[in-house]
């Protein structure tokens, strides 16, 4: 569905994404890696928010690979690459419903119509209601988005990304800051949408990653260091040392963990 070749992005002297070759099929693939590994940057490259220093991004549409490396964010979005943001990024003074409705509308030709009342387009409103239902925000439809709690906003993020029948879904930490009860809801939600769409998920919650993914890719210092089924990746020693070898309940008391070495090498290139 989506593939990159030699995708690289540098910030000054820092290589945030380092010649990544990656291909996403019709699957739920998780992208994990330490903080600052380049996950969000990778997303920004895919969607055209940032342009790569080198490399290409291609999207498969109607059986054809299409180069979208230089496409702008709105172009990638209209080609079906939808994303949610790591930090909540909604339309704050619009209602929750309007947030989703306007996203839905983006994927039709009606958006440029300026002589007809919006109420004429019931289908967008209906679809928006369905999506809110799906993420469990139906009861807040008429509230302003700015009045939602953090967790609720995350759900709204996902609903906006779902609008307009995406070809690929890119979810950047949809669970960040979501309480455990909602984590389950969102996890269910992710699994459900993965039935319908290819999903690329950035996530730090290993329970979810290991639980839902078909495949896990690990990014470290901008480069892919592992790629495979969850169990295999979990067992990979590189991944262990670079990423997973972290906090275990109870470890604080005996003071065995030291975090400093794992992060020390990051990003000094």
């Amino acid at each position, binding site marked *: 569905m989506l593939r990159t070749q030699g995708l690289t992005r540098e910030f000054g002297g820092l290589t945030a994404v380092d010649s990544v070759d990656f291909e996403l099929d019709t699957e739920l693939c998780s992208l994990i890696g330490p903080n600052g590994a380049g996950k969000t940057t990778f997303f920004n490259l895919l*969607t055209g*928010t940032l342009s790569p220093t080198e490399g290409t991004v291609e999207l498969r549409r109607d059986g054809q690979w299409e180069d979208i490396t230089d496409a*702008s*964010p*709105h*172009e990638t*979005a*209209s080609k079906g690459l*939808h*994303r949610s*943001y790591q930090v909540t*990024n*909604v*339309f*704050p*003074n*619009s*209602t929750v419903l*309007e947030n989703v*409705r*306007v*996203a839905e*509308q*983006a*994927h039709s030709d*009606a*958006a*440029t*119509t*300026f*002589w*007809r*009342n*919006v*109420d004429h*387009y019931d289908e967008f409103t209906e679809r928006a209601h369905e999506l809110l239902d799906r993420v469990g925000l139906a009861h807040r439809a*008429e509230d*302003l988005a*700015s009045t939602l709690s953090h967790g609720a906003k995350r759900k709204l993020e996902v609903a*906006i990304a779902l*609008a*307009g029948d995406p070809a690929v879904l890119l979810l950047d930490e949809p669970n960040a800051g979501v309480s455990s009860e909602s984590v389950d809801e969102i996890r269910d939600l992710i699994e459900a949408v993965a039935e319908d769409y290819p999903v690329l998920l950035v996530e730090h919650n290993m329970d979810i990653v290991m639980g839902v993914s078909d495949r896990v890719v690990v990014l470290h210092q901008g480069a892919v260091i592992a790629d495979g089924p969850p169990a295999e990746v979990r067992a990979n020693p590189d991944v262990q040392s670079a990423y997973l070898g972290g906090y275990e309940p109870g470890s604080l008391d005996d003071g065995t963990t030291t975090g400093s070495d794992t992060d020390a090498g990051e990003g000094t290139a």
Partner: protein
Amino acid sequence: MNSPVSAETQMLLPTVETMVGVLYFGLFAISFDFISGYTGYLSFGHAVFYGTGAYAVILIANGKMPLLGPGTPFMLSLLVGGLIAIVLAILVGLVSFRLSGVYFAMITLGFAQVFYVFVRGWDYVATNPRDGPAVGPSHAEGFQIGIPGIDQLSLSIGVLTGDEIALLGSTLSGTEVSYYMIGLVVLACYFAMQRIIHSPFGRVMIAIRENEERAIAIGYNTYLYKLGAFAISGFFAAVAGGLFAGFKRSASPENSFYFLVTGDALLASIIGGFGTLAGSLYGHLFDETVREFLSKAGQGGGLLPYLRALLGQETLDATLLGETTIGGLIDLLLNGHASLYVGLVFVLFVLYVPDGLLGTLRTRLGGTFAEALPAKLWGDSE
């Protein structure tokens, strides 16, 4: 005429002429609000479109517009002015919409001032371009609003050139006819803009104001939407300018292209309620009423003549301190100093009626979703 009651009403109420000004300038303020209040891009050089419309009408009437003779119907001149403004808006917008926030405001201001300086020095538009053009003898008759070609459906505007008509036993003066005819055009333009705001296109404009990055990420080419909205708003600003020139029969760089003209529109939208469209008109009405009330020096109404009449000559001549008389003091504080009080009113407004007239009214009435929206501009600052 001389009853005390009439003195008070005269003092308070704006004249019909002022009201005509409220209409066409109100339209300009509405067009300003259309782009600035709904997309959040402050079009600080908006006056350039207003000026374009005004100059177009006068140049056409003076036979100075290529291809168009002095006999060109006014309605067509308005349209021509609007179209020129659209072209201008697109040219300016192509560059300016790469910027946002204050930078956008400043670059549009910069462009407008370049045009202002240019028009002020362009001999072609008037013998003394700095003083601005006026409709010359080649077009002595009034400009007609209505359906071009059909005299029965057209009426002339202008204080001195407007048609007088008899209606239901009373006569409407040229100014009053202008009021209704210009009102019709303004109303039509207002409804057109209102309709656009409530269309899918309009919702994208609001989405841009709320969070442009996200609007892009869900697939809108916001650049084009902004350009479109800018062009539309430029068109209506030019129509407003054309109405102004058609009614006044003159224009000057200072009252059309100058950045303070945009400033007045900004004041109007703020007082009326930013992002409320119609509010801008009320805002301007308020502004004008206050100014007129405070600055009418001898035109029969206003506070100063009223006070003079009320206090009588004896009181006025009474001395206060040293040589100052009460009359002198009133004159010192009021005569020609309307700005002082207008300024005070604005300060109080900003402090105590921040949502503007219409915005506050809507909040009070518990506005619906669409009505609650505009209360805020540019989102919360984080």
